[in-house]
């Protein structure tokens, strides 16, 4: 005989089992008098339990709802201002102010120019460029490649 379907007896009585499970339990009950007796006892027990548990003391439902309302109001008052829903106009104003601050702050940053990075400072110290400011100021001339290419010509023109 298969194992006793103890856990399945309550769902069986309630008609919750799948057809295959129901068939399996029903077949077992036909063969097993102990489980058959258990099933009958469970049926009686479930029927009696509702009476055994009984009913709670009566309540005035109007008073119950009034108390509930009071508790809800008290709970709302306890909620901090930071958790309360913010009106739409106030939220929009706050968002606008934050946006303005972000734009203004960005402009100020771009005006101050790019800060010199630590790598650039090290390179400056390495080559001693910053020691001769005149050379540095004239370095932009070297960027004009046309001038560089025709330096000889320019020199002869100047002499002639």
């Amino acid at each position, binding site marked *: 005989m298969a194992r006793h379907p*103890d*856990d*399945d*007896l*309550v*769902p069986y009585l*309630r008609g*919750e089992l799948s057809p295959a499970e129901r068939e399996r339990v029903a077949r077992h009950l036909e063969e097993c008098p102990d489980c058959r007796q*258990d099933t009958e*006892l*469970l049926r009686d*027990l*479930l029927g*009696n*339990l*509702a*009476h*055994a*548990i*009984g*009913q*709670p*003391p009566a*309540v005035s*439902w109007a008073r*119950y*709802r009034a*108390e*509930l309302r009071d*508790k*809800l109001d008290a*709970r709302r008052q306890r909620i901090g201002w930071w958790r309360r829903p913010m009106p739409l106009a106030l939220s929009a104003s706050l968002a606008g102010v934050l946006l303005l601050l972000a734009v203004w702050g960005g402009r100020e940053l771009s005006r101050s120019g790019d800060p010199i990075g630590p790598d650039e400072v090290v390179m400056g110290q390495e080559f001693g460029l910053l020691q001769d400011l005149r050379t540095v100021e004239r370095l932009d001339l070297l960027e004009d490649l046309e001038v560089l290419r025709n330096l000889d010509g320019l020199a002869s023109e100047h002499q002639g």
Partner: protein
Amino acid sequence: MEPADEALCERVARRDEAAFDLLVSRYQERAYRLAWSILRNAEDARDVSQEAFIRLHEMAGSFRGRSKFSTWFYRILVNLCLDHKRKHKWWKLWVRDDDDDRAETILDRQPAPVNDPVDKLSRDETLKALGSAVDRLAPRQRAAVLLRVQEDMATYDIARVLKCSEATVRVHLHRALATLKKTVEKR
């Protein structure tokens, strides 16, 4: 046609107070009765069931409609009841629960006369013993039995309320009923 519980819950999420009042009216009796069945104290049952409605009011937006409203609400309620029992367990060790609505009288606590066949067969006595045996069940077993017997809930729904598998609910029910059966058989 009356609006469904699920539709009312959606309206509560949009702060519709009339929908909330309607849900309270529909569930107040069942919530109070179930809380009382678990806690066995009228005042606690009233407080805890009202707290469940307050949570419903606050959390209606989190109801996704994946289960029935009743299952979702009972989960809130049963969790509150089990938490309440857990928190007050230590206190009851010190103070006898004098206002317990089902507290036994001194007479009840006397051993029953063994040779009295009339008492032995008394249905009322059996039911009383059964009721006391339900009180002594482990909290989750008791909740499973009460949801089955009082709320006529299916195993699937009980599993969702207790956040466990259907197999676990079947085991809870089997063990609880086996204990209760012994109580009946003793008498």
